């Protein structure tokens, strides 16, 4: 049978019930929120189930929502079912004080570097990752640059005149 968003949603609801919340279907792509502890189980179910077969991990990234206390860091998985051509988006939230998420590398080896990049930018610790260290930034960096509180520019420059660059005021 051809897979549609409805069938995917129904199958996930059958298996996980009310654990998966915040169903959205923006721009044709089904998206849902998965509790932190269940992310690997949901990914495994989506991968192994004969009807669902989401065997291709398109991307993993993270988003920082500073105002959502308790759930500041969101890890977003994009999955793709190649034979049936259906995409799915899963969101897993983690507290910024304890940003731990189970790794997907056992299921998708390609998640290795995607999770390293997420760790590098946001500080999300992936439990069980074989080699979690920074990948794009310098090793000695001690902060996670993509979080909203950190600035874009290098703060140690002394030769830039902020007023001339329009940065002195509040235009941002």
């Amino acid at each position: 049978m051809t897979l549609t968003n409805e069938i995917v949603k129904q199958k996930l609801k059958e298996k996980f019930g009310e654990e998966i919340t915040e169903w959205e279907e923006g721009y044709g792509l089904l998206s849902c929120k998965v509790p932190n502890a269940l992310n690997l189980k949901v990914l495994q179910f989506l991968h192994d189930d004969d009807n669902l077969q989401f065997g291709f991990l398109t991307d993993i990234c993270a988003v920082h929502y500073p105002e959502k206390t308790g759930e500041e860091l969101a890890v977003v998985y994009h999955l793709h079912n190649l034979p049936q051509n259906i995409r799915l988006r899963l969101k897993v939230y983690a507290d910024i004080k304890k940003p731990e998420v189970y790794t997907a590398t056992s299921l998708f080896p390609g998640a290795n570097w995607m999770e390293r990049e997420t760790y590098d930018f946001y500080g999300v610790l992936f439990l069980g990752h074989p080699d979690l260290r920074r990948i794009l930034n310098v090793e000695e960096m001690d902060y996670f640059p993509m979080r909203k509180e950190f600035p874009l520019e290098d703060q140690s420059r002394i030769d830039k005149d902020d007023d001339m660059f329009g940065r002195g005021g509040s235009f941002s």
Partner: protein
Amino acid sequence: MSETAVTQHIPLASDSLQKETTTMNLGPTHPATHGVFQNILELSGEKILNAEQTVGYIHRAFEKLAERRPLYQITTLTDRLNYCSSPINNMGWHLTCEKLLGVKTPKRVDYLRVIIMELARMSDHIICNSIVGVDTGAFTGFLYVMQYRELIYEIYEEVCGSRLTTNMGRIGGFERNFNDIAFQKLEKFIAEFPAGWQEFENLFNRSRIFMERTQGGGPLSAEMALKYSVTGPNLRAAGVDYDVRVAQPYSSYEDFDFKIPVGTTGDNYDRFMVRNGEMWESLSIIKQAYQKVQEFKGTEADVFHADAPEYYLPEKKDVYTKMEALIWHFKIVMGEIEIPKGEVYHAVEGGNGELGFYLISDGGRTPYRLHFRRPCFIYYQVYKEIVKGSMLSDAIVTLSSLNLIAGEMDA
């Protein structure tokens, strides 16, 4: 210098001359690595037993920059992702914005976009295949076919003014109509390219030396490719026919008739041949698109952008004479346009695979979060697996046949 990747010496058999492997640094600056990425290799003689990659030598913080810039200014960032085929990145970004904003482009715009994207794909593959030739020692092929890249650059210049980092097009279409000179240059390219590329293929495709050099090197099986989320010509050489242009057609690709070349073993030779095949298919798509564009006559032939005044800069003569145009111009340039809240993921088939844009907007001037799904970054992980057990010189050819563009890898 930050030594990020440190490998352990692997002990060898007790009766061998070396007691353990030699560590060799195929460092960030190396004539064979076309771009800055590092490989630390554990060698037993010339055979590679382990490889560790380090990337990030050209990390320019695109995603953080994008949170500061309104939608138009992000086009210049996307240019510099895969800089060998920057129009594809630009069009991909504009398509993502159009998906978010709900702008529908007319057919003529779609066909013109297809022409430009396929030219960019050809220019990317020209570089890749000729550099594979250079790495096996055949420098002449590279010099001959770079001339076709100059012809493609001339077409870009006619349309947008720039050669390499094109910043081409706008949300909803193009900034100016393609004039007659652009079409003449396109016809010249269509006329001259087949003979030149045929000559290149005659030198390489069935050359005994090249075949023996590349066949069997860096084999990538289909299951490994899918598990490592490889896309693009590398995946197609492994045997999986996944192409975003066919799976989720964008910009009216469903109106065109083209084939997808697929390989069998995924070794260097298959990747080379798949890229060759894709270039011929791209040429056929360009011819079909050009024919379709010429069928628009009269006022329809003047359409080069969608009718979306909120997002598309009005013409200067209107800005100076009409009030609404002045207000739209001001709002668009200052970035005060209304962007709906929402999340959108859009993917296009870049030169290296599925180039995805994940855009989260909170209704403000700039994106809340923009993430680029970069194919080169994701499939460089698989290099470690496919190079184990091969000789050093084959590893070099494998590296260049994967077509790694450092700008896309590090962003």
